[in-house]
C-alpha cells in the first residue's frame, strides 16, 4: 500500500533508518551507483559548458539534431528564443556552482512516496532539495525506474536549487526572466538540466559513464552460485580403490538478510562422480553428495576505494555450515555389481572472495575446511576429508 506522507512532517518525525538511508551505506545500496554515475555525468557536462563558454555566444540550450527525438528534447523545444538565450546564459554563469554543489550536497534515499507542500498545492515528488541542510532526498524506487538520462536530468534539476542565481535561491514556483509564467523557475531548471544532459550526450562524455550502470551490485538479495572444486576425499591407506582426483560441482543459494547487516543465510548442494577401471573388467564409481546450510558474514576490504572502482564492490564471505555428507562406491562389471554407501554429518567452514564482473555476475574463489571420515564396513575401506579444498566459480545476484 502506498502511503502518502507529508514530507515536511514525516521526515522530521520518523527516524531516517526506517524509511531512508544514506547514499553509499554499508556495502553499497540500491541506487548508489546510479546516483554516482549521474553526478559524474553532471560534472562532465559542466566541463563541456565551461569549454564552450570560452567561445563567443556559445549555444548551450538546444537539442542536437541527431538526438531530436530524445525525450529530453521535448522540454528544450518548448522554449522560445528568449528563453533559450536566458537558459544558455544561466548555464554559462552557473556551471562552476553546479559542480561545487554536486560534490558538497548530501543525498538520502527515501523508500516511501514524498509529498511536497507548496504554494501551488501538494504534489508527489521524486526528489526534494533541502537547501538549508544541503540535502537532496530521492525517492529510490522512482529514481531507479527512470532511464539513465532522466536520472541525470532529475539530479541536475535538484542541484540547480543550490546555485546562488542572482543572489537568491531558485524556487520552482517563481517566474524568472523570460520564464515569466507560474513555475517558471521549474521550467528554467528543467530546460537547463535537459540541455546539460543533451550537451553531454552530444559530446560523448555522458556515454563515458553509462558503462558503470552494468556493474554488479553487492546489495542484491538473492545469490546463486556455481563452483567447481577438487574432491576433498583421500584414502587413509593406499588401496586398489584410490581415485587420484575428481571434481565436484557446488550449487549455492544465499540470501542477504539486510544490506546494513552483512549476514547471509544459505543452502548448498554439491555433487561429484568419478570413475575408474579396476582390475580386468570392473568399473569403480565414486559418487559424492553434500548438502549443507548455514550462515555467512560479509566483509568489504576495499570500501575505501571509489564506488565506481570494481574492487570497491568485492567482498569476502566467511561461512559456517552444517553439512550432510554421503559417499557411495559402486563396483560394476558384466556379471554383478555392488554398492556401498557411507554418510557423515559435520561442520564446514568456508572463506571466499567475490569479485564483480558485470551485470550482477561475480566470480569467486575460496576454500572449504572439513574434517570427516567415511568407513565402508563390508569392504573394510576408509576415506577421510581433512583440510582445505579449493574452489572457483561464478555467481549471479538478483
Amino acid at each position, binding site marked *: 500500500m502506498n502511503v502518502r506522507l507529508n514530507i515536511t512532517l514525516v521526515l522530521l518525525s520518523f527516524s531516517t533508518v526506517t524509511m531512508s538511508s544514506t547514499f553509499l551505506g554499508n556495502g553499497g545500496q540500491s541506487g548508489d551507483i546510479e546516483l554516482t554515475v549521474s553526478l559524474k555525468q553532471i560534472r562532465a557536462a559542466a566541463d563541456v559548458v565551461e569549454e564552450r563558454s570560452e567561445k563567443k555566444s556559445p549555444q548551450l540550450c538546444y537539442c542536437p539534431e541527431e538526438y531530436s527525438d530524445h525525450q529530453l528534447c521535448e522540454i528544450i523545444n518548448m522554449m522560445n528564443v528568449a528563453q533559450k538565450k536566458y537558459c544558455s546564459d544561466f548555464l554559462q554563469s552557473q556551471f562552476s556552482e553546479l559542480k561545487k554543489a554536486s560534490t558538497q550536497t548530501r543525498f538520502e534515499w527515501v523508500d516511501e512516496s514524498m509529498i511536497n507542500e507548496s504554494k501551488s498545492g501538494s504534489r508527489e515528488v521524486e526528489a526534494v532539495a533541502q537547501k538549508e541542510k544541503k540535502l537532496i532526498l530521492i525517492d529510490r524506487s522512482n529514481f531507479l525506474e527512470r532511464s539513465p538520462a532522466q536520472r541525470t536530468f532529475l539530479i541536475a534539476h535538484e542541484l540547480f536549487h543550490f546555485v546562488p542565481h542572482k543572489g537568491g535561491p531558485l524556487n520552482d514556483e517563481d517566474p524568472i526572466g523570460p520564464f515569466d509564467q507560474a513555475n517558471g523557475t521549474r521550467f528554467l531548471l528543467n530546460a537547463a538540466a535537459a540541455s546539460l544532459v543533451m550537451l553531454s550526450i552530444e559530446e560523448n562524455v555522458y556515454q563515458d559513464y553509462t558503462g558503470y550502470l552494468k556493474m554488479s551490485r553487492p546489495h542484491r538479495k538473492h545469490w546463486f552460485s556455481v563452483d567447481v572444486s577438487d574432491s576433498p576425499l583421500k584414502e587413509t591407506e593406499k588401496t586398489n580403490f584410490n581415485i587420484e582426483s575428481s571434481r565436484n560441482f557446488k550449487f549455492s543459494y544465499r540470501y542477504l538478510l539486510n544490506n546494513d547487516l552483512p549476514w547471509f543465510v544459505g543452502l548448498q548442494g554439491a555433487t561429484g562422480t568419478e570413475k575408474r577401471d579396476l*582390475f580386468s573388467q570392473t568399473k569403480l564409481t565414486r559418487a559424492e553428495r553434500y548438502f549443507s546450510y548455514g550462515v555467512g558474514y560479509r566483509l568489504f576490504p576495499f570500501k575505501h576505494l571509489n564506488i565506481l572502482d570494481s574492487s570497491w564492490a568485492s567482498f569476502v564471505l566467511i561461512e559456517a555450515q552444517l553439512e550432510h555428507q554421503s559417499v557411495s562406491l559402486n*563396483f560394476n562389471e558384466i*556379471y*554383478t*555389481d*555392488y554398492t556401498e554407501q557411507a554418510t557423515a554429518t559435520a561442520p564446514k567452514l568456508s572463506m571466499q572472495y567475490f569479485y564483480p564482473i558485470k551485470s550482477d555476475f561475480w566470480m569467486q574463489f575460496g576454500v572449504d575446511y572439513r574434517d570427516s571420515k567415511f568407513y565402508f564396513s563390508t*569392504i573394510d575401506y576408509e576415506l577421510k576429508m581433512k583440510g582445505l579444498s579449493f574452489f572457483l566459480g561464478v555467481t549471479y545476484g538478483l
Partner: protein
Amino acid sequence: MDFKNRLVSTFYRAFTKILGASFRRIRYLVGLSLALVTLGGCVPAKFDPNINYENLIGSPLSSSTQLLKSVTNLKQNILLFDRTSRKVHLIDSDLTEHKGVFSVENPNLEHYLVYEDGKNYFLDISKLHISTISLNGLSSKSNLKFVGQPVSVAYAPEKDFVVFYDDYQTLTFMKLDPQGNVIDSFQRGAFYEGWVIQAGDILPDGRLLVSVKGKKDANGNPIDSLQIIDLEKSLENSKKSTSGDFKLDYQSIDMTVHNISWVAPIPKKANQVLLKTDSEIVLFNLDTKVSKSVTIDSWFVEKLSKSFDPHVVLRKSSDGFNTKLDNIERRLVFSNNDEIEERRSTRSHHFIISSVLNIDENYWDVTQAAIVSELYLFNIYNTYASGRSFARFRLSDLMALTELDIDDRAIIEMNQHYIFSLFPSDLGFITRTDIESQSVKTLKNFNIRHLKN
C-alpha cells in the same frame, strides 16, 4: 584362455546368435570349420596335466575333481580355483554361503585341487608345488623335492593317503593327519625288483594297486602283473633304508593280459578292478583271480573315466572331426553286479569332454563341447572348449533326461545334482544349476572383501 582362442570363441557365439537357426547343428558346423582353421594355433602348454597318455597312477590332475564320489547329501563343500582372483573359494553346495577364500602358492599358475567333502583340508597343486591347506586357512607346503611335474594323483580320504605320480614316473606317497599335515612320506622311482610300474590307483583300504611289467616266464614270454602295495609297510621300509632305494611291500598277481595301461578300482567292491589293456577291457577279481572281459578290437578309446563308477567310452571312428556328420557308434563299457556290461549308442554326440557314470542312480552324464583344442582321454571340464553342454541319459535305455548349455566363460564343477559355474568375475559370481529342475541359484560379490589390496 589366450587372446586368439577368446577371439574364436567370441566370433563363434556372435555368429550363431545372429543366424538364430537350428543352434546345435549350425554351431557344430561352424565350430568344426573354425576348429579346423584354428587348431593348428592352439598349442598345449608345456606343463599339461590334461595328458592323453595312459599309464598313470590315480587320475590326471585335470580330472581330480573333488566330486569323484557320488554323494547323497545335498549340502556339501565345494572348492573352486578362481582364475580371475587367483584364489580358492570354499562354498557350500546350497549356495547360501561363501565359506572362505584361500590364497595359494604361485597364484599365476594353473591350480588343481584334491578334496573330499567332510575333510578339514584340501590339496592344492601347481607345477611348482604341492600344498595342503586346512579349511582354517593354514597352509603347509610340501618340502619333498619334485624333479618332474606332477601329472596324476590317487587319494584315499578314509586313510588320508595321497599318492602323486610325476612325468618322470616318480611315485610320491604322503600320509596326512586329519588337518592335512604331512606326517610321513616316501618317494621312489617306478622300477623295482625287475618290475616297472605302468598304471595304478589307490584302493579304498589304502593299499596301492599297480600294474607292472618287465619280467618273463619260464618260456621267455613277458609277464604283466598286478601288485598290491602296502604303503604303510613300505613306508616303514623307507625309514630303515639308508640308500633311499627301499623295498616295497607287495603282493603280486600274475596276469594273462598285457600292457595294462589303466587301473580303476570299483567303488564298494574292494576286491574288483576294471582294467584296460591294449586289446581288452577287463573286470578282474583280486581275490578269486577271475576275470571277465570284452574286446576293444579296432574301436577307438574316447574316454577313460573313474567318475563315479569306472567306465570306458569307445567310439567306432577315431576321426573326431567326423563325429557329428555321421551317426557313429559308441560303446559304454562298465562293471555291474560282477559282470561287464555295455550300452551301445548310435547317436552322434559332440566331443565328449567328460563322462560320469552312476550305476546306483541309473544315469550317465556326458559333458560335450562343439570345439575342443585337443581330444582328451580323461575327464576335463575346463580346458579350452567352446559350446559346452551337459546331457544326462538314463543308463538302462539311454533315454535323454536333461540337457543344459554351459556358459563358455565359466569354470565348472559338478556333482550328481548340480552344475556349479564360477565366472571370471572380479567381484565374484557363481551359479548353481539344478540338473533336474534346471533352476539357477546365484551367489555373488563374495570377492568384494578381498579387492582392497
